């Protein structure tokens, strides 16, 4: 009986609350049209970051999230499929986003198709695709330098791995394949000069190939060996400051490579100055461990438990290094263990640190102050690319 009484009271409360509400708002909410789909600006603000989700638990269903790390809310602005160890590459000038990906006609079996899918930045709808021949697009945990642009963003360079290495040159204007270039013993593509690329090679050298107007390879120029792969190899993803790529090694040595000319030049490097607190020592750790802001400061994700084999373990601090002064100007203690970092290209940059739970922690890069967490944007946020 007491229960019935309580329920009646509750119902009366609801009714009275409803009556009061209607009095406050004499007009109902307007009817809303259906089939409304949000659009994005053609050019993304520089607080936006492309977060690639490898989705290791379902690799054919990889994707990327477009995240505004500078906003208070509504941070996740859209998603793009990036299937099967895919790559996402935003253009800075063409209003398009390129995705290198691989499909099977029956999802996991059947006919293999490798494509560059072309997405419209404004609608996030697929515009077109360019089929990549040979079923040889390299499949490995995402590295940004397996898909790059050259020739004023008119051409794309696709790294293939079968396990033989090669590069496919793709004309994005004509939507066609221009050439396939064998690259024995070398990996990935670093755009070089006005029209060409460099690859890092297994003997510690790098090879630069200039392309002619039809996309065919000119003579290869090979450097002296500079990458000590056995003892202290360079991580494959550099931080770009203009056309200079700053690479960092497993043990914390920085190396600058100039990609502005027709052949890449080794500009030398320096060791990140030793810092206290490592057990046994601080080393870079994670997946995308180095990034640069517009001013040319470098951000490096550091792991205090650095040993052989710790290079993918992530890090607990981001160190801000001034490559001109060769100093550590700031140590940013991260709130959470992080996997990859990326600096936005804003006037006042933000530093984004991705976590293994798929959330992003955002810091003021200048002060190191924690700004916000953007929760659950990806399953496996391995690589990030700031809008430019």
């Amino acid at each position, binding site marked *: 009986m007491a229960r019935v009484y309580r329920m009646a009271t509750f119902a009366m409360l609801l009714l009275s609350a409803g009556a009061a509400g209607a009095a406050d708002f004499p007009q109902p909410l307007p009817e809303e049209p259906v089939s409304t789909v949000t659009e994005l600006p053609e050019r993304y603000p520089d607080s936006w970051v492309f977060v690639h989700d490898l989705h290791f638990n379902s690799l054919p269903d990889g994707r990327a999230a477009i995240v505004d790390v500078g906003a208070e809310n509504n941070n996740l602005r859209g998603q793009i499929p990036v299937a099967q160890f895919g790559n996402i590459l935003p253009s800075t000038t063409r209003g398009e986003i390129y995705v290198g990906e691989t499909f099977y006609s029956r999802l996991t079996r059947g006919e293999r198709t490798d494509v560059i899918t072309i997405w419209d930045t404004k609608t996030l709808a697929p515009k077109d695709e360019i089929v990549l021949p040979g079923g040889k697009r390299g499949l490995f945990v995402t590295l940004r330098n397996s898909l790059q642009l050259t020739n004023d963003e008119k051409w794309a360079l696709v790294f293939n791995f079968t396990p033989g290495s090669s590069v496919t040159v793709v004309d994005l204007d004509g939507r066609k394949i221009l050439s396939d270039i064998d690259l024995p013993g070398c990996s990935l593509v670093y755009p070089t000069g006005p029209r060409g690329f460099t690859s890092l090679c297994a003997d510690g050298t790098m090879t630069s190939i200039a392309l002619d107007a039809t996309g065919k390879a000119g003579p290869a120029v090979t450097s002296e060996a500079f990458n000590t792969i056995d003892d202290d190899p360079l991580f494959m993803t550099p931080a770009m400051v203009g056309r200079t790529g700053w690479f960092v090694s497993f043990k914390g040595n920085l190396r600058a490579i100039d990609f502005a000319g027709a052949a890449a030049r080794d500009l030398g490097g320096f060791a990140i100055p030793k810092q206290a607190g490592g057990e046994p020592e601080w080393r870079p750790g994670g997946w995308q461990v180095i990034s640069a802001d517009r001013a040319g400061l470098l951000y490096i994700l550091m792991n205090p438990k650095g040993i052989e084999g710790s290079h993918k*373990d992530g890090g607990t601090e981001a160190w801000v290094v001034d490559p001109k002064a060769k100093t550590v100007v700031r140590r940013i203690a991260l709130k959470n263990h992080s996997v990859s970092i990326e600096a936005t290209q804003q006037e006042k940059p933000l530093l984004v640190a991705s976590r293994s739970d798929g959330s992003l922690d955002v810091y003021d890069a200048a002060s190191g102050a924690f700004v916000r967490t953007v929760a659950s944007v990806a399953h496996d946020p391995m690589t990030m690319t700031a809008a430019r």
Partner: protein
Amino acid sequence: MSGLDKFSEKMTRRVARATSRRSLLTLIGGALTGAAVIPVLPVSRAQAQGHGHGGDPVAPQTTGNPQDPGDQTQCDYWRYCAIDGFLCSCCGGTASSCPPGTEMSPITWIGTCLNPADNRSYIVSYNDCCGKSSCGRCLCNRNERDRPMVRPQANNDINWCLGTSSAIYNCSTAVILGVALEQQ
């Protein structure tokens, strides 16, 4: 197994045996230091929670053979000293065989792991199993002597479902190819 598969298997074993003593010793060093590794790993949230358990509370599976000790569902099982991926032991296969309906990749990367029971070092081939999507159980990533993509044969980030009818990755095995060194 096709003629091509047999050929590449033979080649893998030959290359593995021909690897220099010095580099084998280096690899063994890596394997030894790896025994206590705690995988705080970038590849998946499961790994971050893993603490050497592959992320999932999977019931233990042992071979029952005292000369092949350890739990094959755990990252610290001796053969997994350079593995990266889902353990096939948790996915319908075993440490040395693929789950039903998948295809074993003939091309692979290798490690040299010390068996704590007989104190021998074995060459272990990490053949991927292919043709079905990610198993999703017992993710394990150990990186002793792992090198970046610039040296593919020493890199465990590559999808080694190469030379199979489908390049879709399911899980990874750890097959004994032979003894690495004569014991002194």
